[in-house]
Structures are given as C-alpha cells and as structure tokens.
C-alpha cells in the first residue's frame, strides 16, 4: 500500500478538496468534483471518479467527516464536512504548497 509516484498530484487533489469544503461548506462528491472542474476551468482534466479515493483517504485521516443527507433536488447523497483537524491541515498544506510553488517560480525565473 506504499505511496506511489502520483503523490504530488494526490496531495494537490487533497488540498483542492479540503479548500472546496472550506469555501462551500458541506458538499457531496459530485458537487466537489464539479467545483474543482469549474475553478480549474478545464485546465485540469480529471476523471470525477478519482476524487472518491481522495475522499476516503481524507476521511480515514480524520480531516473530513461523511454524513448522509438530502440534495437540493431531494436525492439521498453523502455529504462531506471539514473537521477541526481538517481546518488546521489546510493551513499546513497551503503553507507547504506555497513554499513548493515559490521555489518552482524561483527556478523558472532564474533561467
């Protein structure tokens, strides 16, 4: 069950999910997937299904919580909510992401 080469991408996806839940509040998987698609404006071509392993991972770590609820058009769906440790995690992840981004930017400008 070792972490593989897609770790960076996975980390990115995790942060996207967490951030989405922070801004939108409790949301179901489809909603989260749509939101990520919209924000990234097709720049990121992602199979919607891939967020489910991510959601499971975040849930297992205790960063998000899942409860069954009813969607806007009366459908039973699983809603995910950010937990307290999840909120704290966003800060940590954001920080490290910005550090990586800044480093990358520096590399790219040095030329």
């Amino acid at each position, binding site marked *: *069950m070792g972490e593989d080469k897609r770790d960076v991408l996975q980390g990115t996806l995790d942060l996207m999910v967490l951030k989405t839940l922070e801004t939108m509040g409790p949301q*179901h*998987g*489809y909603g989260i*997937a*749509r939101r990520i698609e919209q924000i990234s404006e097709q720049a990121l071509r992602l*199979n*919607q*299904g*891939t967020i*489910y*392993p991510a959601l*499971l*991972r975040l*849930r*297992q*770590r*205790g*960063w998000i919580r899942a409860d*069954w609820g009813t*969607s806007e*058009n009366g*459908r*039973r*769906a*699983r809603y995910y909510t950010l937990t307290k*440790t999840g909120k704290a995690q966003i800060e940590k992840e954001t920080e490290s992401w910005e550090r990586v981004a800044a480093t990358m930017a520096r590399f790219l400008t040095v030329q």
Partner: protein
Amino acid sequence: MDEVSRLRTMFSRIGAMFRRKKLDRELEDELRAHLEMAAEENRRRGMNTEEARRKAMRDFGGVTQVRETVRMREGVPFVENLRRDGLYALRQMRKSPGFAAVVIITLALGIGANTTVFSIVDAVMLRPLPYAQPQRLVDVESREVNGTYVSGAVCYPDFFDWRAQNHSFEHLVSYHDQSLTLTGVERAVHLDGEVVSWDLLPLLGVQPELGRGFGPEEEKLGTRVVLISHALWASQFGSDPSVMGRTMHLSGEAYTVIGVTPASFRFPVDAPKNDFWTTLAVDNDGTPRTATANRGNHSLAVIGRLKPGVTVAQADAEMKAIAARLAKQYPDTNTRHDSAGVESEIRALLGDTRTLLLVVLGAVVLVLLIACGNVANLLLARAREREREMAMRSALGANRGRIVRQLLVESVTLGVMGGLAGCGLAFLTTPAVLRLIGESVPRAADAGVNLPVLAFALLVSLVSGVLFGLVPAVASARADLLSALKEGGRAETAGGHRLGSAVIVGQVALGIVLTAGAGLLMTSFLKLTHSNEGFNPDHVLTFTFETPDSRYTKTRAEFYRQYFEKLRALPGVQSAGGSMLLPMTDNSGHLSFENPEHPVSKGEQESARVDVVSPEYFHTMQISLVAGRDFSDGDDMQSPQVMIVNQAFAEKYFHGENPLGRKLKPGAGNGTPGGPPWREIVGVVGNIHSSATQREMDPMQYLPASQLSTWCCMYSVVRTEMDPMSLEPEARSIVTSMDRDIPVTDVHAMQDLIGMQLAQPRFAMVLLGAFAGLALVLTVVGLYGVMAYSVARRTREIGVRLALGAQRGTVLQMVLRDAAVLVGVGMAIGITATLASASVLQSMLYGTGSRNPLVLAGVCGVVALAGMVAAYLPALRAAGIDPIRALRAE
C-alpha cells in the same frame, strides 16, 4: 502525514473489515447518486436521457475501477485479497457442488473422528491433575526386585518408615478406599470415601471450602475426624455451615466433621464420587496385629509431593534404597517387598490406558491422512482440468505466487468447511463414544467439545488444507503455459499422475496397518467374550452391603446364615451364596500361606489369590466341584478349620497329587489368639477368571466366611430363574427387614459386571474397527477416483488401441493390472509397516499374538477385494470405449 493521521487510518481500516456489507452498500449508493446527479445536470443542458447518462459515465471514468480501489483501500489490502480469494473459492464450490460436497464430507469424517478422539485425549492425558503444581506429584509403590509382586500396594509400617526416612518428599501420603454407612439420617446411606494420612490437603495444595484440614495429631489412636465432600454437605446437611464440629455416625462410630472440601475437589482423581476423607487412625484398633502395625497387610496406595529440585529418578533411587534396607531389617515380612518404584502420578493413574489412547489417536491420524490423500487426488485431477483457467490467469499477468495463493486459499477454505462439519460430527459422536468408554478410562467423563478441542480442530483443518492443497497448487503453478493454452494441448502436469499413484499406494499401506490393528483387536475381543470364565454368568444377580464391625464382630456369621436362608427362600431364586472378593469386580486379594511340605523362611512364603466365601457359593456360580466337599453351615469357629483350593492351586503346589486332607496355614487371622490356624483342604474346585481381561486362571485358595467372622463384607450372588435385576426389590427388603441401617449397594447382573470390565477392550475394538472401516471406504473411493480419471484421460489412447485391433478383454485386464500394481505395492508396504509396529498393540491383546498371520491374510484379502471392486467399474468403462467416437472427440 503525522502519527495521529496514520493511527486513525489504521483503525479505520481495521474497523472496515467488520462492516464490509454496510460499506459496500454505502459506496454503491454514493456512486449511483453521483452518476444520477451528473446525468440530471446534463439533461438540464438539453441532452437526451441516453446521451446524458453516457456523458456522466465518461466524465466519471471507470466506475468498477474506482469501486475496487476504494474497497481495497477501505480495509487492509492483504485481508481484502484473502477475502477476494475466499469468495472466489466459494464461487468455485458453488459451480461444482458435487466436488465440494465430496471433499467436505471426506474431510468432515477425518477431522470429526480426530476431534472426538482428541477431546478424550485432552481430558484424560493432557489436562493437568486438578492440584497445585501437579507435575511434582508422584505415585510410590512397593516392589520386588526379582519377583512378581504386581499390585504395588504398601503396608502401614513400611509407609511410616518411608515417611520418616526419605529426603525426597515434601509430603508422603497413604490412602485406601473405604465404604461406610451414614446412619442417624432419615435413611441409612452408603458412602464411598478414603482413609488417608493427615497431610493430604497440604500435599495436594488444596484448601477446604469450609473448616480446616487434618492436623498431625489426628492420626493418633482413637481419633475420628472427617472431611466431607461439597456434594454430601449439600445433600445431607442442606449446606448448613454449623455442621462444623458436629458428630456424624458412620458405620456405628461417631466422627467429628471438621471441614468441607471444595465442590471441584476429587481425590483420588478417578473416584469422583468419594464423599468423605478420614485419617488412618480408623485403621488402628489398638491390638498388636492391627493394620497400622502389620507389615504383612499390603493395601495402601501412596502419593508424594517431590521437594523442589528433586527429580523422579532421584526419588526412585532413594525409595529403592530405603525398601532394600527395610527388607534386611524385617526379613520375615519384607523379603518380597525389597524394592520400591516412583513414577509421575498421572502416568501411574493412566497405566496401560495411555497405550490404548495413543493407539487410538495414532489410528485416527492415519484416517485423516487417508482422507487428505483422497482430497489431494481429487484436487490434482481438478487442477488438470483447470489448467486452461490457470494458464489464462498467468497470461493475463497473475504471477505464480498469486496463483499458488489462490489455490491454497481454495483448499484451506475447503479444509475449514470440512473442519466445521467435522466439529458438528464430533459434537454428535462424542457422547456416544463416552458411553462406550463408561468408567473404564479415568477422567474420560470430563471430555467434551470445548475451546481447546475446537482450536485443535481448526488447526487440523488448516494443516490438512495446506497439506492436500500444496501439491496440486505447486503442480499448477509449474504448468506449461503455452501447451495448456493451445486447444487440445493436454500436457500432463509435472509428474501429476505419478503423484496421484503415490498417494494411492500410501493410502493402501495405511489402510492395511489400520485394518490389521482393528482385526487383531476384534480377534482378541471375540476371544475375551467367548472365553469360558469357569462359571456361568447368566441369570446371576450380585449386590453387597456392609455389616459394620461396631455391631457385627460377634454375630456376623449368624447374621449371614439367617440372611442366606431367607434369600434362598425367595420365589424365583435357585440358589444364593456370598463372596468377599467377587470375580469381575476389580476386588482381589493375595494371601501368603505356610506349606509344611516346603518349609521356607517366613519371608519367602508363597502367596496366592484368595477369596472368602459362604456355603453354596460354588453351586450358585456353577463352579464345578472337582473333588471333596463344599463348605457348609457346620464349618464354624468350633469345628475343624478348613479351606478349598482350585485345580490350578493343586497343580502348582501339590504337583497334581491329591490335595484333599493336606493342611496349609493361610496367613489369615480369625480372631483367635495364637494367630492364623492350620486349615485342612476339604475340596477342590474348577478354575475361574477373576476378571474378564485376565489372561491366566490363577491358583486360588477359598476360606469359609463362617470361620473368619472378623472379615467383612461379602457380595451376595443369587442365581435366578428370571431376569436377575427383577429380584432387586425383594433382595433389598430382606436386608432392610433384618437391619434398617444397612443400605444395599452395587446391584448388578453378573453379565453387566463382565460388560463393564470389557468396556476398555470393547472401546478400543469399536473405535479401531470404525476407523479401519472408514479408511477402507476412503481408500476404495480414492482408488476408484484415480482409476476412473486415468481411464477418462486415456480415452484417446485406448480408442487407438481398440482401433488397431486390441481385444476388449485385454483393455479390461490392462486397467485392472494398473490398479493391482498400485494395491500390491501399497499392500507390501502396509504389511511391512504392520509387522514392524505390531508390538505396540501387545498389551491390548488377549488370546492372540500381535503378528497373527490369519488376521493379516484376512486383512489383505479384504483390501485386495475392495481394491479390485474399485477398479472394476473404470475398467469396464475402458473396455466399453467406442474407438470411432473416442478418436473423433479430439
């Protein structure tokens, strides 16, 4: 990821294993909701239903892949894989239910038999004795260096010397059975108990539930103190704690109750019904020849607790030295007790029963091996049929480890299911087997299918699953991928056929060993049940009662005379008599005697089995009176003292000369001063077996009860015209009418006594017989399977032979010959193994040697016949093959 998240993940995964169904349903619901929401949104954008649904699927990616990924990561991957293999295995079973059923039934028989036997072995041999540090408890017995003193019983003075002189034991305790009658209660009750030295409880490391144990001063003359069992306390005293210090009347004497033992307490272990324990003070009547001072009276068992660090061997050496010293000190009494033996208490308790159980356990393991052989062969045949499936999996990227694992999971799943069914079988059969054992094996009654037994069954299932699964699994993994995938390419799996044949040969060999053992035990049992006991056990009722010394020392002879008169007057009674050491009751006694024709020093006197009987005893038992006369009521204390011997005695000690009129002095005091009297031999009777499993008919001396009125007590034997047990009420009421404080006990028909004594050999025979039968059936089924399979695979070859002009008879012979070779080789190995291991059974056999050629020949005949029957059907099928169809088929 920090430690907390890691831990949470781990717990979440472990938790998930137990909520599989719920999680699967939730995931399914969630994914369906996702797709429906996506499709709905697509429809809102103007797509038609079908388009909307398809786009939703496309955007999602692989639904199955996501589902499997999530499922795998929800739980522990290793376990998930196992679960998946397990489910696959179950699906395979459902696909071929016949195959699964045959395998599971075969295993259930093997594992069930093993579980049943193990539950008994566990209770009898493996469970420690129920005392503190039981491994330090040993049995000590009296022995003779170059002699035949087998009973091992010890006398009090020797015991006191052992106790005083040894340095090996923390405690050394003597004990012997004692039956007493509890009176002063509503109805007199017969109680079994034990007379022990004072430190029994400290030796065992047991605390009384109530009150106290004995003190050393309570071995002194005149003391009467008693510990009672929890059961007696509850039944006779209503569990009243104030019973402590109260007086209890046992056989006419007043005892002070000083304590109650815990409910679980037993001593000795094989006497669970004991109700009281009292000190050896009761064996001391203060006279010079009292039991506690008599070196000639050997009736004690001795148990010791080794000091820490002392080994059994060291204690044994010390006790031998002490016994040798005592033999020099007291040559008159101890010459034939010049040695001693120490062995672990549990070994002493089990004796020959140990061999019996080990033989049964060995037999049942053989049955399991044969069952595993069958299953392995079935799986091997199936593995060949599944070659294409395995090759396909290989081609699709499954590595060999993965395939072996999957096959092993399949066989272990089969093993576990067989084990479950086997446990059910064991649950059903254990009570029946326990009934068969009766009381013939100590502690067997405690056996049951409990946790350790279930753990054993599980272990056996897993081990057999791996055992019979590994061979085909490895064979499959080695299979040649290409040739297997090619249509019609039917390469033999590496050595698969030879493997199957080897398994059959092994099965036949094991089957021979088992059947030969069973055959020997059966022969022996038939000899036992059909042997002439020397008396007629039909229509004989036996029972006993106590005439307590406290009231009957003077009047005992007269009491019995009147009693037998009344008994003989009952309607339906042909005759009645009494015997103190009744045959078939495990009671026995030896008595030394002085023979004027062979004067020897007192210590070297011969001794022979003895019984004390009433007039008409021989007539009632139908023991033939060969010469002279029976005892009569006229043989009393005033008349000349007499005795009767049997033919074996006359032969051994009078070398066939007429013993009538000769005089001997058996060492039995009759209460008159001056010690034992000379007795004239007035009669010679036929020999009898004193116990049903006795190999020889021993020399015996019979003394008249009326001339030994200090000796108590006789069994009554009554020959009846009808069912002997129907006489029980009348017999009881005669005794009660004469003395209402005498309870009648041990009421049995003589045939039932014999039956109880044969319980152990019967148990051995029935179990081994059943196992041998099972082994034979399994072997036949296995052989049939292998031959049928081989014929099926050779259809083409046989077709070609037939097409080229081979006779059908030749084909039939060819198949039968193949089977005969397998059976023959197996038989040769089996006979060799049987001859090599025969001595194991020796101690269990009566009237037959352990290498009985007739039995062996019979067994081989049965196995050969069974083997040919198993091979005949496939051979017929082979001969019936239609060459045209066989050739066209491929």
